C-alpha cells in the first residue's frame, strides 16, 4: 500500500486523462441521442401511413397472403438479434443477448430449430466465440441505421420465410424458416431501455391505435391494380419498416446506455481522483514527518557526539 508520492501522482494523472475520455464520450452520446430520436420521429409518419394502409387492406379484403399465414407445423425459427457495434455501453449488448438466449431456449423447448441472424458486431462476436453458427450478420451501422440496411435485412428474412421449408436446399441459398423473431432494445426513455422480443413473421396485422369500430375512419378503398397486388407490395414494405423501427429504437437505446455508462465512469473517475489525492497527501505528510524526525535524530546525535567531546 505504501507507494511513493510520485506513484500516486502518476495514478491521479492517468485517471484524470481517462476521465476526460469518458466525459467526451458521454457528451458525444448525449448529442447523438437527440439526433437518433429525431430520426425515429422522422420515420414515424411512414410507419403510421403504412400501418393504416395495411389495416385498410386487411379489413376490406379477405385475401390471404403468404406473409400472414401461420405455417401448420413450425419447425424452424429465425431470430434477428439487434446489438451494438461498439462496447462501452454498459450492459446494453449483454442484456439484449440475454433476452435473445431466453427466446432461443423457449423456441427450442417448443421443438423448433433456431437460425441466428445478428446486427451489430457485439452479437456476431458473442455467437462466433461460442462456436454457434450465425446465418448472416450485418455490421457497421448500429448507431445510425439507414433504411437501405433495414430493407436489405427485411429482404433476406422475407426470402427465408417464403422459401419452402419442406423442400431440400436446392437452388436458392435462403435457409427456409417458419417464423421470424426480432430481439431489440426498446427505447422507453433516457433512463430506461428494455430488451424486447417480438415475432415479425408471420405477420399479425395490428389494427391502428385509433378505434377501428368507427366505420367512417376506414373508408371503402378501391385497389389498383388489385387488392392482392397491393398487398403484395405493401406487406414486404411493412416488414421492412418494422425492422427499421427496431433498428432506430436500438440505436437510440444504445446511445442512451452508452451515455449512462460513461457518466458513471466519469463519476467513478472523480471518486478515484479524490481518493488518490487523499492517499497521496497522507504519503507526503508521512514523508515530511519522517524527514523531520530524521533531521531531529541527526541533530541529537551530533549534539550527543559534541557533548561527548567536551
Amino acid at each position: 500500500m505504501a507507494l511513493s508520492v510520485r506513484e500516486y501522482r502518476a495514478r491521479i494523472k492517468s485517471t484524470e486523462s481517462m476521465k476526460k475520455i469518458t466525459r467526451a464520450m458521454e457528451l458525444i452520446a448525449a448529442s447523438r441521442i437527440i439526433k437518433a430520436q429525431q430520426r425515429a420521429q422522422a420515420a414515424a409518419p411512414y410507419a403510421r401511413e403504412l400501418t393504416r394502409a395495411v389495416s385498410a387492406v386487411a379489413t376490406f379484403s379477405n385475401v390471404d397472403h403468404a406473409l400472414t399465414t401461420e405455417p401448420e407445423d413450425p419447425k424452424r425459427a429465425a431470430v434477428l438479434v439487434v446489438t451494438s457495434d461498439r462496447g462501452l455501453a454498459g450492459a446494453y449488448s449483454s442484456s439484449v443477448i440475454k433476452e435473445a438466449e431466453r427466446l432461443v431456449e423457449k423456441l427450442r423447448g417448443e421443438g423448433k430449430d433456431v437460425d441466428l441472424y445478428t446486427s451489430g458486431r457485439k452479437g456476431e462476436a458473442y455467437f462466433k466465440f461460442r462456436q454457434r453458427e450465425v446465418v448472416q450478420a450485418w455490421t457497421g451501422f448500429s448507431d445510425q441505421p439507414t433504411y437501405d440496411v433495414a430493407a436489405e435485412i427485411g429482404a433476406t428474412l422475407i426470402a427465408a420465410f417464403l422459401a419452402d421449408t419442406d423442400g431440400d436446399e436446392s437452388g436458392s441459398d435462403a435457409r427456409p424458416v417458419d417464423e421470424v423473431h426480432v430481439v431489440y432494445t426498446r427505447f422507453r426513455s433516457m433512463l430506461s431501455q428494455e430488451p424486447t422480443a417480438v415475432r415479425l413473421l408471420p405477420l399479425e396485422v395490428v389494427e391502428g391505435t385509433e378505434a377501428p369500430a368507427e366505420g367512417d375512419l376506414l373508408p371503402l378503398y378501391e385497389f389498383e391494380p388489385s387488392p392482392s397486388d397491393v398487398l403484395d407490395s405493401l406487406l414486404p414494405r411493412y416488414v421492412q419498416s418494422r425492422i427499421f423501427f427496431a433498428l432506430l429504437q436500438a440505436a437510440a437505446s444504445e446511445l442512451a446506455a452508452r451515455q449512462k455508462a460513461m457518466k458513471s465512469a466519469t463519476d467513478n473517475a472523480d471518486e478515484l481522483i479524490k481518493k488518490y489525492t487523499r492517499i497521496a497527501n497522507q504519503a507526503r505528510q508521512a514523508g515530511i514527518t519522517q524527514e523531520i524526525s530524521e533531521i531531529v535524530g541527526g541533530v541529537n546525535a551530533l549534539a550527543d557526539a559534541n557533548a561527548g567531546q567536551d
Partner: protein
Amino acid sequence: MASDASTDKALQVELVAADRLVWSGQATMVIARTTEGDLGILPNHAPLLSSIIEGVVDVQTVDGETWVAAVDAGFLSVADNRVSILSERAEMSHEINLEKARQDLERAQASGENDDAAQEAVRRAEARIRAVERAS
C-alpha cells in the same frame, strides 16, 4: 393553372419517405404514376389505394405553385381528401443534384442491362432527372 372556385375543399397531401416527411401541405391536384399509368387526383376523389412506380409526382398547391418530386416505388392512398404518398426514397426537385443523377444514369446504363437492380437504378435516375427538368 388557377384553382377554380368550385373546389371548396383542398387536398391534404403528405409525401413521406421511409426516413422523413418530405412535404406536407394543401394542394388542388396531385399527379402520380401508378403501375397502371399516370393518375391525377382532384379533391373529392374516391378512396383509393394504389401502388406507384419510380417516377415523378406533381403537386399543385393551393397557392398555385407546382412542386415536383422524384419518388421510388411505393404507395398512394387517397381517402377523405387526404392523399399520402409513401415511398422508400423521395426527393423534392430542388434537393436533387442533377449532375449526380446524370452520372448515376450513365453508370446504371453502362452496367448489365438485363439486371433487375440495374434497370431499377436506371428508372430511378431517370425519374430524378425528369423531376428537375419539369420543375425548371
